[in-house]
C-alpha cells in the first residue's frame, strides 16, 4: 500500500522499471523495421533508446530538451533528404520510428509511456506493409503480447507483479481476442482498392522476367529460388512437358535483344478452340511490378481487371504490386491465327540487315531442299541435335553477332540462346516466328497439392506460324536437352555447373527439399486463406452460406449479428467466471461445519456469532466441546482478528479441523 503526493492517479510519474518496459517494447516494435530502414535511422533510433535507458540511472540532464529539439529537426530533414517526402509508406515509417524514439527520450509521466506504447502497436502494423509472411506475422503478434504486458505494467500499483504473471494476463486477453479478430476479419466489409493514392515506392528490387530478352537474362534468373507463382488445378494438371506458362511474347529484334511489341486486345478467344477440354486453375502470383500474368496455352476466360491481347498474352490493367490471385481457364488444344494479318506477318519476319549472315546462308541451303515450312523447322531442330551443342548455365560471352557466333563457334548456351537463334533461322527462312518467355514445368508440392513455380523455372522458347496450324510452339532447348522439359532444370544440367543447391539433381528427394516443400505449402495456405482474403473471397464465403448475390449490406448485418452474439457469449462467460470465484473459502468452511452441526439438530441462529454458537454446541454436546470450540475460535480469529485476512495455511488448518469432526 502506498500513498502518493500527486492527487491525480493519471499523472503518476514514471518509475525506472516502467520506463524500461516502455523502452523494451518500443525497441522490439522497432526491430521489425530494421531490415528496411536506412542504416542511419536504425542506428539513431537504437542510440536514442539506449541513451534513455542509461539516463535512468543518472540525474536529469538539463540541456536534454534542447538536444532533443535539435535531433527532432535533424531527423525530419534527414528523412526529407532521404526520401524527398515525409508521407507515404517508407518515409512515414522512418519518421514514425524516429519520432517514437524521441518520444521515449522525453517521457516523464505514465501518460508519455502510454502514448509511446500505443504508437508501438502502430509501428508493428506498419511492418506488415513491408512483409506479411508467416514469420514476420508471428513476430509482430508476439510483440503485441509483450506490448500489452508492458501496458499492464504501467497500470500496476506500487506492488509489481512478476513478468510471467503479466505475460500470462496479456496472453489471456490476447487469446480471448482471437475469436473477435477472426469474426471481424471474415465479416468486416472490405472495399476493393486503395482509399487514397499511394506513392509508388514499393517493390523496387524484385526479380522476374523482364520485357526484354538479351542472352544472359534468363540464366541469371535461374540463380534465384524465389517463388514466381503457385498453381492449384481443379482436376489433373497437365504433365510437366506441357506446362509452358506463357509470359511476355517478343517479336521485335535488334540483332541482340528481343522486345515486346504493343498489340491490340482480343474480345473472344473461344473461336480458336479445337476442343472443349479446358484446364481450370488458380494462380497466386507474387508481386513483380509487371503488368502481365502467366497462363498455360491459350487463356479462355480471364479474371477481372485483365485482358488478352492479340499475342495471347494475359495483361493486367495495373502492375502487380502485391500478391495477386486469379482463376483462369486454359486450353492446350487450339489453332490460333489461322490467317495472319500482313502487319503481323511483317513484324514476325523482321530481321535487322547485316546480322547473322552465316546463319542466313545455312537456312537458304535448307530452303532449297525443303518441301514445306515444317521441314525447315525440323531441319533446324535437327541441326541443334546433331551438332555438338551443349545446354549450359555458363555460356561464353557473345560479342558482335551473337547468333552467328553461337551457331558456329561457341555452341554452348542456355534456353534464351537456342530460342533466339531458332527464331532468327525461321525468320531467315521466311517463316513468321517469335520468342516467348515464361516458365516451364514447376515442382509438384504433394503436401499442398499445388505446383510451385520458381524463378529458376524461367524459360524461353519459340512460336512459329505454319499454314493451317496457326502459331505452333517449338522448344529448341528440348532438341538439345530433352530432360530440361521432361524432368526440369535440375536434371538437365550437369553436376559441374556449380548450380545453386535447389536446382541440383538429387535435391528433390532430400530432407531439405521435403522441409522446404512443407514450408512452401504452409506459405501457400497462408497466402491463400489469410493474405488473399479480400472482397471476392468474402462474397464467395457468403454465397457458400446460401446468400444469393450478397452485398456489403449483408456483410454489415452478418458482422453486427455475429459480434453481438460473440460479445454476449463473452459477457456470460465472464459472469460465470465471477460466480465461481466469489465464494469466500473461509465462509465456505464454516458453512460445512454448521451443516454438520445442523444435521445433529443444532443449527446456528442468526443472532449469534461463531463463538456463542460454539459455546451453545458445547453445552448440548459436551463430548464435542473441544474440537467445536477450536473451530469456532479459529474461525472468528481468522475472520475478524487477523489484520490481513486468512492465509492459505490458516485455511488449510481450519479445513483439517472441520474434516476431522467425525460425528
Amino acid at each position, binding site marked *: 500500500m502506498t500513498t502518493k503526493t500527486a492527487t491525480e492517479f493519471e499523472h503518476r510519474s514514471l518509475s525506472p522499471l516502467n520506463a524500461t518496459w516502455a523502452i523494451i517494447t518500443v525497441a522490439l516494435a522497432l526491430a521489425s523495421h530494421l531490415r528496411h530502414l536506412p542504416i542511419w535511422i536504425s542506428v539513431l533510433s537504437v542510440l536514442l533508446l539506449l541513451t534513455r535507458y542509461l539516463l535512468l540511472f543518472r540525474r536529469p540532464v538539463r540541456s536534454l530538451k534542447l538536444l532533443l529539439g535539435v535531433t527532432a529537426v535533424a531527423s525530419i530533414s534527414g528523412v526529407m533528404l532521404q526520401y524527398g517526402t515525409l508521407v507515404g509508406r517508407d518515409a512515414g515509417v522512418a519518421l514514425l520510428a524516429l519520432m517514437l524514439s524521441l518520444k521515449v527520450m522525453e517521457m516523464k509521466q505514465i501518460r508519455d509511456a502510454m502514448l509511446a506504447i500505443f504508437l508501438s502497436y502502430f509501428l508493428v502494423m506498419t511492418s506488415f506493409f513491408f512483409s506479411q509472411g508467416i514469420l514476420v506475422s508471428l513476430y509482430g503478434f508476439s510483440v503485441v503480447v509483450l506490448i500489452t504486458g508492458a501496458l499492464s505494467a504501467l497500470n500496476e500499483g506500487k506492488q509489481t507483479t512478476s513478468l510471467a504473471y503479466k505475460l500470462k494476463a496479456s496472453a489471456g486477453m490476447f487469446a480471448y481476442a482471437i475469436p473477435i479478430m477472426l469474426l471481424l476479419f471474415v465479416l468486416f466489409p472490405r472495399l476493393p482498392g486503395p482509399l487514397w493514392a499511394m506513392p509508388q515506392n514499393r517493390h523496387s528490387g524484385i526479380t522476374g522476367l523482364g520485357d526484354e530478352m538479351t542472352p544472359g537474362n534468363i540464366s541469371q534468373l535461374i540463380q534465384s529460388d524465389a517463388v514466381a507463382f503457385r498453381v492449384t488445378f481443379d482436376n489433373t494438371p497437365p504433365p510437366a512437358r506441357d506446362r509452358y506458362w506463357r509470359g511476355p511474347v517478343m517479336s521485335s529484334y535488334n540483332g541482340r535483344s528481343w522486345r515486346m511489341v504493343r498489340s491490340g486486345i482480343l474480345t473472344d478467344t473461344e473461336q480458336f478452340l479445337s476442343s472443349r477440354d479446358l484446364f481450370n486453375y488458380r494462380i497466386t502470383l507474387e508481386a513483380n511490378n509487371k503488368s502481365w500474368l502467366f497462363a498455360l496455352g491459350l487463356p479462355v476466360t480471364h479474371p477481372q481487371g485483365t485482358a488478352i491481347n492479340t499475342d495471347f498474352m494475359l495483361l493486367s490493367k495495373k502492375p502487380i504490386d502485391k500478391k495477386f490471385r486469379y482463376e483462369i481457364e486454359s486450353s492446350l488444344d487450339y489453332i490460333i491465327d489461322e490467317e495472319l494479318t500482313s502487319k503481323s506477318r511483317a513484324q514476325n519476319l523482321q530481321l535487322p540487315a547485316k546480322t547473322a549472315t552465316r546463319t542466313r546462308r545455312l537456312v537458304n541451303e535448307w530452303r532449297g531442299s525443303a518441301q514445306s515450312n515444317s521441314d525447315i523447322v525440323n531441319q533446324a531442330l535437327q541441326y541443334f541435335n546433331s551438332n555438338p551443342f551443349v545446354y549450359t548455365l555458363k555460356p561464353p560471352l557473345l560479342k558482335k553477332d551473337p547468333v552467328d557466333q553461337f551457331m558456329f563457334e561457341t555452341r554452348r548456351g542456355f534456353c534464351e540462346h537456342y530460342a533466339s537463334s531458332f527464331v532468327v533461322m525461321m525468320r531467315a527462312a521466311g517463316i513468321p516466328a517469335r520468342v516467348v518467355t515464361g516458365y516451364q514445368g514447376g515442382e509438384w508440392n504433394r503436401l499442398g497439392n499445388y505446383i510451385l513455380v520458381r524463378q529458376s523455372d524461367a524459360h524461353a522458347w519459340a512460336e512459329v506460324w505454319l499454314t493451317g496450324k496457326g502459331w505452333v510452339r517449338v522448344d529448341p532447348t528440348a532438341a538439345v536437352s530433352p530432360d530440361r522439359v521432361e524432368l526440369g532444370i535440375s536434371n538437365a544440367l550437369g553436376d559441374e555447373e556449380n548450380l545453386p543447391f535447389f536446382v541440383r539433381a538429387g535435391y528433390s528427394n532430400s530432407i531439405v527439399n521435403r522441409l522446404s516443400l512443407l514450408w512452401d505449402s504452409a506459405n501457400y495456405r497462408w497466402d491463400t486463406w489469410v*493474405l488473399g482474403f479480400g472482397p471476392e473471397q468474402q462474397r464467395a464465403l457468403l454465397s457458400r452460406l446460401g446468400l444469393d448475390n450478397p452485398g456489403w449490406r449483408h456483410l454489415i448485418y452478418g458482422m453486427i449479428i455475429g459480434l453481438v452474439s460473440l460479445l454476449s457469449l463473452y459477457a456470460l462467460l465472464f459472469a460465470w467466471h465471477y460466480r465461481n470465484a466469489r465464494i469466500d473459502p473461509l465462509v465456505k468452511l464454516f458453512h460445512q461445519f454448521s451443516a454438520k452441526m445442523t444435521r445433529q439438530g443444532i443449527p446456528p441462529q442468526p443472532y449469534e456469532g461463531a463463538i456463542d454458537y460454539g459455546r451453545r454446541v458445547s453445552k448440548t454436546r459436551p463430548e464435542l466441546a473441544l474440537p467445536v470450540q477450536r473451530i469456532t475460535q479459529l474461525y472468528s480469529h481468522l475472520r475478524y482478528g487477523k489484520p490481513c485476512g486468512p492465509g492459505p495455511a490458516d485455511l488449510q488448518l481450519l479445513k483439517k479441523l472441520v474434516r476431522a469432526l467425525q460425528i
Partner: protein
Amino acid sequence: MSLVSALNIKQSFRKRFADWVTRHHRVVARETSLNRRRLYILPTSYGLYFASLLILMLLAAMNYSNSMAFMLTFLLAGIGHNAMWYTHRNLLNLQITKGNCAPVHAGDDASFKLTIYNPTAKPRHAIVLQWEDHEYTCTDIPAGESVHVDLKVHASKRGRLYPGRFKIYTRFPLGMFQAWSWVNFDMSCLVYPSPVQSSHSPNVSASGEDGEEQRGEGRDDYNGMRSYQASDSPRHIAWKVAARHEDLLTKQFSGQTNTEIWLDWQQLQDLDIEQRLSILCHWILQMRTQQQRFGMRIPGFTAEPAMGEEHEQRCLLALALYGNHDDQQIIA
C-alpha cells in the same frame, strides 16, 4: 484565472454527476460489497486515444488492402474489449469495511482506516481510493486476503467530519477503462481546532485564594521548563538551553503555593470564537508537552484541573464540538 474556473466547472460537474448516479444509494452502516449493480465502467482518455488509433489503423489497412494489418487492428479491438472485462473484474465483489479515524486538527488530513477484503481467488491490482479531488491511495489485494487502507480526507474545519461519499476505482490492467463505485459509509472523524499560538498565556492562580497578583511559579525549587511567554522575567530564561534551541524556554520553580492553571475562555475576550478555540487548543497541547495540570472553562463546559490523556481529550472534544448543538450531550 480562466483555467481555474474551468477546473471548478469540471469539478462541480463531476460532483453533480456523482450525486445523480448515487441518488438511490443508501449510507452504508459497516460493510459493503461492490456488486455488479454498483459498479460503473467507462473508457478513460487513454481508451479514447486507443479507439482513435484503431480507426487510423483500420483506414491504413483498408488503403493498403493489407490482411495482416486488418488482423492486427481487429485483434487490438478484441484486446480492448477484453480489457474492459478485466478492469471490471478487478473491482468486482470487493468487500469494504469501515474503520476508525484518529482525531485530527483542522487543516490536517484525516485518514479513515478502511479494510478491503478480496473474497475471490483472483488477486486485485492498483485499486485506488480517493475522496473528492484529494490525495489518492493505491493498493493491491492478494486473493482471499484483506488490506488496510487509509482514505485521506481533508479536514478543513473543526467539528465532526463526515467525509460522505468517496470513490474506489481501478484502471488495471490496460488503463483504457475505469471501473468505479461510490461508497458512502456512516463514518465520521473528530476534528479539533487548529492550534494557534498567541501572546496570551493561560490563567494561573493559587488554589482557594484570590491570588491574582501572585505568579504561579515560585522561586524556590527548580521544576522543569516551559516555553517562554512575554510576561516571563528575563532572569528565568534558560539561556544555555536557548543557545541550542530555537525557542526560548523559561525555567520554572515550584513555590510553596499550590497553583492552578485555567485555560479560560474569558481571558480571550477581544477575539472571535474560532480564534479563541484555536488558542485554547494550542494551550491544551502545550499543557500536554509540559505535563501540567490544567482546568478549562468555556461556555457550557467546565473541566476541573486534572492531568492525563482522558482529560485532555475531553477538553479537546469540547473545543471541537463547541456550538454544535447536536453533539452537546457527548460533551456533557
